[in-house]
């Protein structure tokens, strides 16, 4: 596949700008960065060079506006559309570009939620075979996952070529995902995050948000605790993702995608998270210029200082992880019967189960969820969690002992865990000693 010229539409958005940087650097493609106005495009161009830490790619980046669409589109081998997540806005853009497309031009959408089949139908039949979803994660320079999703009309040969291009030229970790809401990474990731949010509400009298984040902190296989992640992503974005999944899917985890009341209230008050100054957490500047992070107390509706929870299981796990005793760290977890250790085990087990169920229904193979979660979220991937517990048999035993019957009755755990292989990922780097 020879992609020499690319047009990114919506190149001043976070993803548009980052993806332009990837095409211009690893792809060495000339990239037209189409934005609402030229000033925004010029700023995005500088930003894009910084995302790959290479000013040298600036010569590949050309600021453009929608006025220039005819020139950009007619010269491009690939169009990457990264405009607002609204079907009418996207349709409008597609209508504008359709007439300038060359027969060979590939059209990829960066949508993270809309249906690829539905979007592709905005084009006439001749163009549809060249259209597909190309969903990268933020920031793509560090997160190499690229979920590629064909519509029912996509040319299979073109899809194959695109996968090779994304993998070998752009150095992406490519996974083909079926056209289902939120694709795979966000579906598995936000199942975990949203259920953590529901638990924060359930356990609001124990501390709520920071209580749950302390149970599911970096020592459980992620860089950032789940609710801190939601705050970072933005509650509005979180809501859009889980609403989409909740409204359009119906698997056993359906109810875990319902956003809790308190979070909806925060959104209505424009308390969206880090980007709006406060959300689940709030950064407060001290008199000496340092910052303190406070947390939203669901029970009182106010922000307060974060509690320094001391859970013996977590303290012991961290102590073992610090010196690389992974097996002992997991024994500390599974031998502990406190409510916090139980919640932690339940979340890890449910994450594995949901990962495996999802990979079987919308992934390429049993390893897809692992690839997606490791390279898109930097979370310990599901199969690697099983390895960390000590293998399938121990994992299954712990699952049946520590999960509630009403959960176990919803799934066929034997079937889900039948013949699962070892992960291709090493679990050790994911479990942080903090």
């Amino acid at each position, binding site marked *: 596949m020879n992609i020499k010229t690319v047009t990114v539409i919506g190149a001043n958005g976070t993803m548009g700008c980052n993806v332009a940087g990837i095409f211009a650097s690893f792809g060495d493609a000339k990239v037209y960065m189409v934005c609402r106005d030229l000033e925004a495009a010029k700023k995005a161009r500088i930003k894009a060079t910084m995302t790959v830490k290479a*000013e040298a790619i600036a010569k590949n980046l050309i600021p453009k506006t929608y006025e220039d669409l005819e020139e950009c589109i007619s010269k491009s081998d690939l169009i990457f559309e990264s405009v607002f997540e609204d079907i009418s806005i996207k349709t409008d853009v597609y209508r504008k570009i359709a007439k300038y497309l060359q027969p060979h031009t590939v059209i990829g959408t960066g949508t993270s939620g809309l249906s690829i089949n539905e979007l592709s139908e905005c084009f006439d039949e001749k163009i549809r075979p060249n259209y597909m979803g190309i969903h990268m994660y933020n920031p793509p320079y560090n997160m190499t996952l690229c979920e590629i999703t064909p519509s029912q009309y996509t040319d299979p040969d073109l899809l194959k070529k695109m996968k090779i291009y994304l993998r070998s030229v752009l150095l992406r970790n490519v996974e083909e995902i079926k056209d289902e809401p939120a694709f795979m990474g966000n579906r598995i990731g936000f199942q975990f995050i949203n259920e953590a949010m529901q638990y924060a509400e359930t356990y609001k009298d124990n501390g709520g948000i920071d209580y749950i984040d302390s149970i599911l902190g970096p020592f459980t296989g992620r860089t950032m605790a789940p609710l801190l992640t939601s705050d970072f992503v933005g509650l509005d974005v979180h809501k859009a993702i889980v609403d989409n999944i909740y409204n359009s899917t119906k698997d056993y985890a359906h109810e875990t995608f319902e956003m809790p009341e308190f979070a909806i209230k925060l959104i209505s008050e424009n308390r969206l998270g880090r980007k709006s100054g406060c959300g689940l957490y709030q950064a407060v500047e001290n008199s000496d210029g340092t910052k303190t992070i406070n947390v939203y107390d669901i029970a009182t509706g106010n922000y307060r200082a974060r509690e320094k929870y001391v859970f013996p299981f977590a303290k012991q796990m961290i102590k073992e992880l610090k010196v690389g005793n992974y097996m002992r760290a997991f024994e500390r977890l599974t031998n502990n019967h406190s409510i916090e250790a139980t919640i932690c085990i339940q979340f890890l087990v449910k994450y594995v189960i949901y990962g495996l169920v999802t990979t079987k229904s919308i992934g390429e193979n049993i390893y897809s969820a692992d690839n997606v979660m490791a390279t898109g979220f930097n979370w310990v991937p599901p199969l690697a969690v099983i390895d960390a517990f000590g293998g399938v048999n121990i994992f299954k035993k712990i699952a049946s002992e520590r999960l509630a019957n009403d959960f176990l009755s919803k799934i066929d755990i034997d079937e889900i865990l039948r013949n699962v292989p070892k992960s291709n990922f090493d679990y050790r780097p994911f479990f*942080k000693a903090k």
Partner: protein
Amino acid sequence: MQKKIYVLGGAQTDFERNWSKEGKGVIALLKEVIDDGLKNIGLTYDDIIELNKQDKIACFVGNFIAEYYVNQGHLGALLTEVNPAFYGVPSARYEAACASGSVALDAAITKIRAEDYEIALVIGWELMKTVDAKSCGDFLGRAAFYEDEAAGIDFPFPKLFGRLADATITKYNLDEKRYLDNLAKISVTNFANAKRNPNAQTKKWFMNEVQAKTRGTSTNDMIGGKLGISDCSQVTDGAAFVAIASEKFVKENCENNEFPIVKGWGHRVAPMKFDKKMQESKDNAYILPWTRQAVLDAYKRASLNVDDIDFFETHDCFTSSEFAAISAFGITEPGHENEAIENGHIVFDGEKPINPSGGLIGCGHPVGASGVRMFLDLFKQVAGKAEEYQLKKADNGMMLNIGGSATTNYVFIVGKE
């Protein structure tokens, strides 16, 4: 070399990892690399206990300056904290700045050759991301003559290797632009090679020739003399492990005895101070004559010459040191290194590939680990176990590991028996 020294294999950690960010320390690092290394060579901790009962095993630890980075000395003994199997096992730490890994290897090889032990475990490591960049540079300054060459100087080593670049241009009367473009190409080749190495620090990083040539920008700042960040290896956390064994051990314990062997070595020390190095080499054809001598010693001991060597792992702490290594290896005449670079001889599929692993610039440079990592990469290539970065022909490989400003020079040749 009289007695055969076999290389059984080993392991390295993923050099992309930042152990401080993971909240983990040296014990976790050592545990991981030793666990993985033992697994790869088919040895257990119980085997170590048994071998030690018969006084057949010893450990050799390479590390430069853990006293500063992690407040820890007595690093040979520290292995007892990794596993009780090391109780009673002879173990000591060896230091020669960035060539610490090689001096540990040298000690291990010597002990096996003398038949004092049958198997030696060599571990090189450094945790450098425990401190900020400026302190890190200052700590490394102790590999030079600190008082004269490093005290009070920000990033002394880039400056020393920047001076090597200047001295190279002057000595051989090179066209400055052409020389700097050659260095850029060296950098790009190392970054490109690292893309195939799953343990490389820079496997996700972007670098191309334009970027490497454009020094003095905010993404490629000047770091020492004419050198930019792209000419420079990065601060890295990591460890590497290799096991070497006697013929007796291999015959008695290994089903398969087709292991690579150590064919030659060279060890030469140049004047400590950079000024004196240049003064001493003024009338020599080689800018780093002791580096060249260490290479010649290894060729002589192995009864091989440059034509017999299929690939090289070199100490590209800076592009200027890789440039000088090209002639030291004998790939070109001194002053003509540009030929090998411009003709593509040293790229992955070239005639004389240098650093198929990505080298220090691409794979990373945890200083005390680098010598062992290079030696492990010689093993991987010769044994056909380099997977994604396996070269087509790798019967004999040579490594050059240097400490200080090419002060300690260590060379090993590993090849098929």
